[in-house]
């Protein structure tokens, strides 16, 4: 067989039936190349969208000229739902927003309610909250790192990061009984204390963890394909990042020094030493670097908090808001009535409006609560970082190749449960 059969050069036009033996003469008038914009649908069932996001891509060849995200496949109307629930009943709903980092959502929500009520938290409660929030940040970043590398084609990292994530999820299970939808925070504190065993295991984890981070780093930074697929991809300038409302690692990747934990220190963040890592180029590689450094900083915060962990109660002593301990409820009539009233009627916060921002692993997670003095919020608005970040998606995707779209999705650390609410 002759493989060297010369091919007729294609003009890109409809060249008539195949049996036409005489090649049509190419004249000057005929265009040699045909140009047409291609509309490509991506998702909602696409593994790299991490949920159900649909994007309509307008392509010119392989270049993206417009990317239109289509949201709402996971819209459950959480904000409307919350208007019919008492303040405690909303906590489990916040678990289901960003289901990768449910502790951070719990934390952001209870902080907003505590701000509305004006209650303060005992010191041990604050330290435990900080420890848990930073553990959750590590879990969130490990999840991001594994899936982002997997999307780009570096499969091993996924198994390695999930190994460490598993260790932390086991600890969460030991602390509160659940691994994903934790429902651990309470208005006024946390629901369970850290046992000696948990603290010992956590310290052991922290001892090994920096070495694991080095392992991931070696695996990725020495991988030429991974590096060339992340460097100078999805670049956004600091000015645009601020204007688009980006927060968290995506904003810091562009070199803007803003972290809610530093700007408005809450919990125990003001009492421990840590730094805010900053990028300079605003590309995916810088965001990767920031998340790696943040994991190291989180480990640093946790170990300091474990050292300083004071003794004392984990729930505040405000009987209007906090239910009595379960042991008392089982024995004491007044406590039983108190417990019953808290969980059937709820509590009545003062009239007013608050906005409370918390640094979640994905960015600034804010809860706005409008209270009319009744036990249910009149209006609750969730400022989800994933949703705001997706607003910049079109701006960041334009001009890149279609193969980069998966990197651009991954760069934000999107979770659609939080985005669609």
């Amino acid at each position: 067989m002759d493989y060297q059969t010369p091919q007729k050069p294609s003009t890109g036009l409809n060249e008539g039936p195949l049996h036409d033996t005489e090649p049509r003469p190419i004249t000057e008038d005929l265009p040699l190349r045909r140009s047409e914009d291609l509309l490509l649908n991506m998702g909602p069932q696409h593994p790299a969208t991490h949920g159900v996001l649909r994007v309509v891509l307008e392509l010119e060849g392989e270049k993206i000229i417009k990317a239109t995200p289509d949201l709402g496949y996971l819209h459950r109307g959480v904000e409307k739902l919350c208007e019919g629930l008492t303040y405690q009943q909303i906590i489990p709903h916040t678990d289901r927003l960003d289901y990768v980092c449910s502790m951070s959502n719990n934390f952001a929500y209870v902080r907003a309610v505590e701000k509305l009520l004006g209650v303060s938290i005992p010191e041990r409660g604050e330290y435990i909250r900080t420890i848990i929030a930073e553990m959750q940040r590590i879990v969130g970043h490990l999840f991001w790192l594994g899936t982002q590398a997997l999307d780009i084609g570096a499969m091993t990292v996924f198994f390695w990061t999930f190994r460490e994530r598993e260790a932390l999820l086991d600890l969460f299970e030991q602390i509160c009984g659940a691994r994903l939808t934790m429902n651990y925070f309470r208005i006024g504190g946390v629901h369970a204390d850290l046992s000696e065993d948990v603290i010992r295991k956590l310290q052991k984890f922290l001892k090994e963890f920096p070495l694991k981070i080095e392992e991931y780093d070696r695996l990725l930074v020495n991988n030429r394909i991974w590096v060339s697929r992340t460097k100078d991809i999805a670049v956004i300038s600091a000015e645009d990042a601020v204007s688009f409302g980006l927060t968290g690692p995506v904003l810091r990747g562009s070199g803007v020094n803003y972290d809610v934990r530093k700007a408005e220190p809450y919990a125990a963040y003001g009492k421990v030493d840590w730094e805010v890592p900053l990028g300079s180029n605003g590309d995916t590689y810088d965001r990767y670097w920031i998340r790696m450094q943040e994991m190291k900083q989180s480990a640093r915060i946790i170990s300091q908090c474990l050292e300083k962990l004071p003794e004392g109660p984990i729930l505040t002593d405000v009987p209007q808001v906090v239910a009595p301990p379960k042991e008392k409820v089982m024995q004491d009539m007044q406590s039983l009535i108190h417990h019953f009233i808290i969980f059937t009627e709820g509590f009545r916060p003062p009239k007013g409006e608050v906005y409370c921002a918390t640094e979640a692993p994905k960015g600034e997670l804010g809860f706005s609560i409008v209270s009319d003095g009744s036990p249910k919020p009149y209006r609750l608005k969730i400022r989800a970082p994933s949703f705001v970040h997706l607003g910049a998606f079109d701006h960041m995707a334009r001009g890149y190749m279609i193969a980069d779209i998966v990197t651009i999705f991954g760069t934000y650390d999107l979770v659609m449960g939080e985005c669609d609410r």
Partner: protein
Amino acid sequence: MSQEIAQKIREAFPGEFVEANEFRNDWTVVVKPDRIVEIARFLRDDSDLAFDQLSDVFSVDYPGRAERFEVVYQLNSIPKRHRLRLKTGLREDPCEIDSVYPVWKAAGFLEREVYDLMGVRFRNHPDLRRIFLPEDFDGHPLRKEYPTEGKGWRNSFEFLPTEEPQT
């Protein structure tokens, strides 16, 4: 500091300023809706205020009031490290306000959400479409009159049997 912010807005826009109040160290400034873009631009460009980031936009429905909808802009200043809530009231008909997209690009998505769920229209918005719900969805679910129970909009689907089948 925040009291000075309110004072500055009052001085720059005496005709637009309605009131300012404080709750739990959060300052709220209420303004009239007509010159919202100018106010927004002033808040962003004034060197003492420097509200360079729009954190959130949402709307609250008060069915009893003459100005039924309240549009709330939650602002953040990264260089100055302060926040402000800017509020304005809107009548039900026409329920329209100028878009602040020219000032903060974050408004692109946030205002679409308000339009989708509350039905507030934003003039001069580059792409005002529903964002979560389908294009043919009937009503705006975050309005207080929208039912929380029942099939709602899905009742209009033809394939749902309207009567119990005879057995």
